[in-house]
């Protein structure tokens, strides 16, 4: 791709058509177009509305537990300094974790769900639908639906239903109906297709609560704005705790909502290096990965143009990742734009590397990270030993890993 000219600010997108450069847009069936325009109208009304903001802040504080802490990961820092010394480098930056794992429901997903449920309420909608991969977004959506008294249907690939049964049970306890999707490989992509089919059928009363910063405009923008609380807090917290901005910030990218939430408030801080981590799966040589920005090409799926894993005929491929939350063949459109503009570096981390980081963090920090977050930590493990001791790295710990212990146990050949 041609590299776009460097803009004055990286924080002004999308444009009025919902585009980030060539990415984003509104590639949906006509039936959905009036609904998306209606959503955009309401979103433009509430985004600067003081009452809406106050209600969201109150819920974020007292219901979700915000602000999440910025934690100096002393155990991991010490470990990586030992690694650095053993290599004769004598360095090792300070590592901080942004603790989204401590939020209600155990991940950053609640930030977006609280914002969107308030929007659905304002729009007078009566029914919530959502798609989910690992079940983290499904649980968060079912949670806010329970809290606000909406019936909720969650579409989940049949493969994911089988491998994430604890989250399926949680959603059911919360009163949601979980509909397994058998089409395709039965993963997140197929769940999203089925949610769109539901929406196109139930246009009058249904609100589609998308879980990531992707889909047709205005979803990528509104999900980003609801998740930007992560970066806004982290930026203020590091200034307070260290008196300066970090050198590097890192987050894992599936659809990319936790990453864009952390990155966006830092985009115009030119001295801050920003790194997004894609699921490298079993390696980028084959097809068993989800590194759409490293090994895919721009295309159109699920309402937006973005980097996609696809074949030469434009058919979308099923990716692979050890982490169900990263198991998606696309990525939010703003990430695609940030990639092409060069502001953010996107690099892959393999299944094995994520698994090692998962084990390491559990051992030296007493924190079990989500496998998604373990991808981001794994990259910190790679780069921190070569950095100076007075440098600072923030890693987004987007969720807790309790949901992943079955997956990890089976990877390690253990029975639980």
């Amino acid at each position, binding site marked *: 791709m041609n590299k776009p000219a460097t803009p004055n600010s990286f924080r002004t997108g999308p444009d009025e*058509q919902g585009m980030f450069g060539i990415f984003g*847009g*509104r*590639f*949906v*069936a*006509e*039936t*959905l*177009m*009036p*609904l998306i325009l209606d959503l955009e109208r309401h979103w433009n009304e509430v985004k600067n509305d003081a009452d809406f903001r106050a209600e969201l802040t109150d819920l974020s504080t007292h219901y979700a537990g915000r602000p999440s802490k910025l934690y100096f990961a002393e155990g991991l820092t010490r470990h990586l300094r030992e690694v650095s010394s053993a290599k004769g480098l004598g360095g090792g930056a300070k590592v901080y974790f942004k603790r989204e794992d401590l939020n209600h429901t155990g991940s950053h997903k609640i930030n977006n769900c609280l914002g969107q449920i308030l929007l659905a309420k304002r729009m007078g909608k009566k029914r919530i639908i959502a798609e989910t991969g690992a079940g983290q977004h499904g649980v968060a959506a079912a949670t806010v639906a329970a809290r606000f008294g909406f019936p909720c249907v969650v579409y989940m690939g049949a493969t994911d239903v089988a491998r994430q049964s604890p989250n399926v049970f949680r959603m059911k306890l919360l009163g949601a109906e979980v509909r397994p999707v058998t*089409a*395709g490989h039965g993963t997140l*992509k197929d769940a999203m*297709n089925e949610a*769109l*089919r539901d929406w*196109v*059928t*139930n*246009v*009058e009363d249904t609100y589609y609560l998308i879980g990531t910063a992707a889909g047709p405009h205005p979803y990528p923008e509104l999900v980003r704005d609801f998740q930007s609380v992560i970066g806004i807090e982290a930026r203020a917290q590091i200034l307070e705790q260290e008196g300066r901005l970090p050198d590097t910030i890192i987050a894992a990218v599936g659809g990319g909502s936790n990453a864009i939430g952390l990155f966006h408030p830092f985009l115009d801080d030119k001295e801050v290096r920003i790194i997004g981590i894609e699921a490298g799966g079993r390696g980028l040589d084959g097809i068993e990965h989800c590194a759409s920005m490293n090994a895919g*090409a721009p*295309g*159109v*799926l*699920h*309402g937006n*143009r973005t980097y*996609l894993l*696809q074949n*030469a*005929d*434009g*058919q*979308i491929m099923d990716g692979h990742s050890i982490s169900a939350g990263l198991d998606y063949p696309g990525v939010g459109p703003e990430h695609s734009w940030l990639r092409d503009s060069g502001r953010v570096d996107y690099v892959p981390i393999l299944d094995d590397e994520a698994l090692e980081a998962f084990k390491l963090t559990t051992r030296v920090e007493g924190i079990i990270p989500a496998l998604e977050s373990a991808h981001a930590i794994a990259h910190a493990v790679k780069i921190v030993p070569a950095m100076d001791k007075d440098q600072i790295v923030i890693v987004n710990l987007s969720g807790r890993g309790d949901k992943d212990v079955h997956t990890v146990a089976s990877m390690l050949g253990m029975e639980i």
Partner: protein
Amino acid sequence: MATRIDRRMAKLKTEGRPALVTYFMGGDPDYDTSLSIMKALPKAGADIIELGMPFSDPMADGPAIQAAGLRALKGGQTLVKTLKMASDFRAGDNETPIVLMGYYNPIYIYGVDRFLKDAIASGIDGLIVVDLPPEMDEELCIPALKAGINFIRLATPTTDDKRLPKVLQNTSGFVYYVSMTGITGSALADTGKVAAAVKRIKGHTDLPVCVGFGVKTAEQARVIGANADGVVVGTAIVNAVANVLGPKGEKTADPAEAVATLVGGLAQGVRSARLAAAE
């Protein structure tokens, strides 16, 4: 510049009957069988052919067309082969209009300019691209119109009077009215409401209005055709193919013959539509 679609619609108008528009999935279950189905359609009474381009993620389609698309992809169908199918068909029929129907990504990956050039060379007359609403007209609609290919837009029950002019603005050939909010293959909507919607759209345009989504039987084709300029049948045809395939995809009867039998009945339906309306 009049296309085959314009000419065919004008001819049917003088005959005083609606068009039978038939959708089938290109490459389902394999190239040769699918081409034989395509060739059988006009002989059985189809007036316009919609040639489905398979896509891995058809978000507006129900289970029947999803499955047909997967069968076609498994059978090795690609956009290159779908264009070749149109071209092979054209060798024996230079009159029946062909409309390519599907999703944008395969076209985008093929390259819009190259696609339009090859589509014209293959005898394609129109395009229906489900995920390109008027807001994205610069992508393909405008280039297609410049190249002389009709861009047929979907209008739906959610397209209100305020929005209709925007939807109709760059539409040509005909307007495809989607009879209900939903995916292909769902139950037919209230036919009274459909008739009212067709009348509403005709208040905004001189283009023919064809109605699709949910029409499966000759009787439904007759009732819908009483008020519309055309009736689109897709899922029923795709099902006729699926019904003669065994569990491993082997043919248990001739799919082209199964489709021809169905389409023959539908053709009777549209031919009696206006007689019924006059009663």
